[in-house]
């Protein structure tokens, strides 16, 4: 099959996007070297663009890429002056080449992505590096794309990635799925990274809107992969559900001018029903497993909102109950703040004010606290006090859209 050049580049790019993580995870497994694996796969892609244009798509494009990348790795190891250090991997590659001269079938390529994600999210790496490395190696995003999403210079992001890969090699971070003892803590780190990627896109304080949303999509895609690799792990299901439920509101969260719209003012007909259905099903399955963790509880709360036809018709008592369980697990002031807001709708704004006043010292510099306090004061008819609190919230906000929204609240009073 002959392919026109532009179609070929598109085919290769689409394939790369889909298969990058799996191919790279397999290569790292045999090469034990992140940088060498990435460079060799990059070499293979360049070859693919030339060869496929000339001879058409091979029968197993992924298998072709993997075999070519292994051959490129052999070349790279031979050329390297530290040849001896890689002699074991080199010998293994040669054996692999002799045993299977044909490219492997696509479906027979070993999937090592679980090992890869645990390594990329290792707590011995700096948090931002974990995010960048996960997006680069598992997501197949380019360094430029990652830099743009995080408003960093491409050069700085490239250096960060190189340093992270060097630390993995030099400090001996293993390429393994952690043992049962270490798994809960390490899984928490992986889920934390995925949620940070999602929030980087979702909380969009600045930057390219299109790229921002692609971060949300990427986080969801990676969570799906993780869910498929580690099925039945309730917190993975909880996180995936949480992200789907949040993302289902993306079209209703801002208007044409990019102004943010609060949950209570959103046009619920714009919420994406398919994502809601999937999110609810996932969180129900997860909770049925009987180990309710923080992601599942947040997803459950989000699910109650998603099911409600309006703010008034929301089952607020249920939300307060979910926050009570959440508070038992994580007794922190931010969860108490969110619970107080739920109380304001379940019972009254006055009841919520009592709870909010006890948080004053702990959350004095926290913008959402002052915004919530202002709302409850306004709804209790204490307009003068409300105005002062909206003022505090505006002072503390780093987001121009949010400041506009709060100013609108004052003018509407």
């Amino acid at each position, binding site marked *: 099959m002959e392919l026109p050049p532009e179609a070929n580049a598109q085919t290769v790019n689409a394939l790369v996007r889909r298969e990058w993580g799996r191919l790279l995870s397999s290569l790292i497994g045999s090469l034990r070297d992140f940088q060498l694996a990435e460079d060799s796969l990059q070499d293979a892609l360049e070859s693919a663009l030339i060869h496929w244009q000339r001879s058409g798509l091979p029968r197993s494009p992924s298998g072709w890429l993997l075999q070519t990348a292994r051959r490129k790795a052999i070349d790279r190891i031979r050329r390297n002056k530290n040849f001896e250090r890689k002699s074991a991997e080199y010998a293994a590659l040669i054996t692999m080449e002799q045993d299977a001269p044909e490219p492997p079938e696509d479906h027979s390529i070993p999937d090592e992505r679980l090992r890869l994600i645990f390594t990329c999210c*290792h707590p011995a790496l700096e948090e931002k590096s974990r995010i960048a490395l996960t997006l680069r190696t598992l997501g197949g995003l380019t360094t430029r794309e990652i830099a743009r999403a995080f408003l960093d210079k491409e050069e700085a992001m490239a250096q960060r990635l190189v340093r992270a890969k060097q630390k993995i090699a030099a400090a*001996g971070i*293993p390429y393994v799925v952690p043992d049962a003892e270490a798994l809960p803590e390490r899984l928490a780190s992986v889920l934390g990274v995925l949620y940070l990627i999602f929030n980087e896109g979702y909380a969009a304080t600045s930057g390219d809107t299109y790229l921002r949303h692609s971060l949300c999509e990427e986080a969801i895609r990676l969570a799906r992969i993780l869910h498929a690799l580690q099925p039945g792990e309730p917190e993975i299901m909880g996180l995936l559900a949480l992200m789907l439920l949040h993302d289902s509101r993306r079209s209703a969260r801002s208007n044409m001018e990019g102004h943010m719209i609060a949950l209570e003012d959103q046009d619920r007909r714009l919420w994406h029903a398919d994502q809601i259905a999937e999110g609810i099903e996932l969180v129900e399955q997860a909770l049925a497993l009987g180990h309710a963790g923080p992601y599942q509880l947040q997803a459950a709360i989000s699910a109650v909102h998603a099911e409600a036809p309006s703010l008034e018709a929301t089952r607020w008592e249920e939300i307060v109950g979910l926050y009570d369980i959440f508070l038992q697990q994580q007794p922190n002031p931010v969860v108490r703040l969110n619970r107080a807001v739920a109380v304001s709708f379940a019972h009254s704004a006055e009841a919520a004010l009592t709870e909010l006043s006890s948080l004053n010292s702990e959350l004095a510099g926290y913008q959402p606290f002052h915004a919530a306090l202002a709302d409850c004061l306004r709804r209790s008819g204490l307009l003068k006090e409300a105005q002062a609190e909206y003022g505090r919230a505006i002072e503390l906000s780093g987001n121009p859209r949010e400041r506009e929204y709060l100013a609108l609240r004052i003018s509407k009073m």
Partner: protein
Amino acid sequence: MKYLALIYAATNAGPAYGTPEFGEFMKGYETATQRYRADKVLIAGEGLKPTSTATTVRVRNGKTETMDGPFAETKETLGGFYLLDCANLDEAIKYAAMIPSAKFGCVEVRPVMEY
């Protein structure tokens, strides 16, 4: 891979000498050392006398200069070390977490250079 576990703690942190807690603390070190030995990862391990006994040495223009005290005046000081031979960083972290001083101070895990 070899890893050096550097044990840092503030001088007055941790249980005071002569208290039952101090006894527990020292027993914790014994238990850790025994475990390292049993798992065949222990190469060396020592506790250090306080920084008030330290002398810092520099050679400048061929001349040896000595100074009283540690290289850097910090709240948390180096109090001891273990040199461990582990399969990877995860194993080194697991063993480092068994060091009793990690509960109030911290342990820096550094891979040893290989030539």
